[in-house]
C-alpha cells in the first residue's frame, strides 16, 4: 500500500526523495520503495524520517 502521507509530508517540506534520503542516510531508492509501499522500514528509520519531517510516527506510518 502506498504511503501517501510520507510523500505529502516530504513535499510540504519541499524536499526531494534524494534530499530526504541523504538526511536519513539511506539511498533514494529506499525512500522511493517506502513511498510506493514496496518496503516496510524498521522503527529506527521511521523515527529518523519523522524527525526530519517534524511529524509523529502515527502521522506518517499509522494506517487506519
Amino acid at each position, binding site marked *: 500500500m502506498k504511503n501517501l502521507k510520507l510523500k505529502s509530508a516530504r513535499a510540504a517540506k519541499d524536499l*526531494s*526523495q*534524494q534530499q530526504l*534520503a541523504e538526511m536519513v*542516510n*539511506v*539511498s*533514494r*531508492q*529506499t525512500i*522511493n*520503495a517506502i513511498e510506493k509501499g514496496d*518496503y516496510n*522500514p*524498521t522503527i*529506527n*528509520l521511521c523515527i529518523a524520517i519523522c524527525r526530519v519531517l517534524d511529524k509523529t510516527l502515527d502521522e506518517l506510518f499509522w494506517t487506519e
Partner: protein
Amino acid sequence: MYNILDIMFFILYYMSRETNKDNNEKTERRRIMTTTFVIGVIAGLITVAVIYKLAAKFTGAGAFCKDNFDERQLLVRGNAYRYAFYTLLILMTVWMILGEVISTLPVTTGLALFIIMLISIDVYAVYSIKNDAYFGVKYDKRRYFIFFLVIIAMNLIGGIANIMGNEITAPFSLMECANIAVAAAFLPLLVLMGISAFNDREESDDEES
C-alpha cells in the same frame, strides 16, 4: 527405443571422444604455461590487495563495510547471497553428475569451477543491481561503470591475444579461457548497470516533475 537420456549420453560420449585428440601436446604446452599462470595469479592477488587498501584509505571505509549500505539494501543483498548460493549448489551438482557420467569433458575441472563461480557471482550481482542494492548509499556509480569497462576491455584484449597466440582446442583449460570468461561475466553486469542508471534517472525526473 532410445529415450532422451540415452541420446544425451551418446552426444556427450561423442564429445568426450573428440576431446581426447591432441591431449599430449596440450599437456606439454600447459606445463610450460603453468609457471606463468601461477605468477600471474599471485601478481593479480597482490594488486587487488593493494588497490583494496588504497581504496579503503581514500574513502575512509572498506569496500565491503556493511555501514555503506542502508537497511533495505542489506536485506536485498542477503537474498542475493542466498540465490547465488543456490545457483552454486545446483551447478556444482550438475558438474558432479556430468563428471561421473562422462570420462572426458570438453572443459577442465579448473575452468568449469571458475565458470560456476562466475555465474554464481553474476546471479548475486544481477539481483542486487536490479533491486538497487549493489552500490552503497554514497558510492559513485560512474566510477564503477568505468571500472567494469576497464576490466572487460583488459580481459578481452588478454583473451583475444591468448586465442591468437595459441591454438586452442578442447578440453579448454582455465589458463586459456579465464580472460574470456571474466569478460563474458562482467558484460551483462555492465549492460544492466547502464539500464539501471537510465531507469534511475527517469524515475528521478518523474519524481521531480
